[in-house]
């Protein structure tokens, strides 16, 4: 069983994007806080301004907010919301079904996709739904945002996916 991927961790270093599933934490880059001009001869390390606690490795395992996911309720709310028209709802449903078929093909070995390949269309679909809901039904949009990772954890787990 795969764990819920931890929330994306922001890293200050302008490095290539870290995959969300592999939220890698690099050791806090020892900032060469060497003010080139005013270095006193005495190399006494100036105390950092606010004594930041060192970044721990355990940040990656930060308590993942595990929202209680009620897929049936979310589906019901989506069906009933007046923020989206009938054609739009049907189009979204078609696209959800298409994505589920891609997952099915992936798990059945019929497609040469990886889970990482499927994450992008999943994110895109979620964004489409959020864009459609954010003005007309912000509470539902928030509920979907909060459930985003929980839904992904189901999709990314073949055993749980089968139960859908």
């Amino acid at each position: 069983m795969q764990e819920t991927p931890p929330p994306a961790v922001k890293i200050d270093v302008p490095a290539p994007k870290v995959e969300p599933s592999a939220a890698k934490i690099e050791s806090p880059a020892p900032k060469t806080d060497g003010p080139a001009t005013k270095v006193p001869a005495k190399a006494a390390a100036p105390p950092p301004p606010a004594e930041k606690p060192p970044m721990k490795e355990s940040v990656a395992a930060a308590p993942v907010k595990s929202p209680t996911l009620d897929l049936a309720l979310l589906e019901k709310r989506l069906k009933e919301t007046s923020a989206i028209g009938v054609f739009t709802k049907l189009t979204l449903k078609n696209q959800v079904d298409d994505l589920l078929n891609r997952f099915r093909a992936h798990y059945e070995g019929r497609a040469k996709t990886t889970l990482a390949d499927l994450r992008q269309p999943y994110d895109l679909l979620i964004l489409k739904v959020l864009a459609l809901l954010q003005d007309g039904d912000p509470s539902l949009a928030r509920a979907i945002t909060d459930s985003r990772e929980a839904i992904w954890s189901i999709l990314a787990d073949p055993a749980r996916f089968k139960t859908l």
Partner: protein
Amino acid sequence: MNCRLTRWAPILLTVAFYAGPLPAADALSKDLTSTIALLGLPCGQVVSSRRLGENDYLATCKNKMRYRVFVDAKGRVVAQRQ
């Protein structure tokens, strides 16, 4: 009572005539706009639409493109450029 009703009736009818259909048409245009956008087709915004049948509309976009938006036999929403 009757007199009051007859006095208000034309006003209410006028309001209903002008205000009533507008939100529905607006909602439909918005729905068709979202649908066409979700299908990845260029449109911008639907400025007018005509009903062709059950779940079947001809939408005219701001960019002058026209799409027939309908639900096919498989239950899929299709936007066909006209």
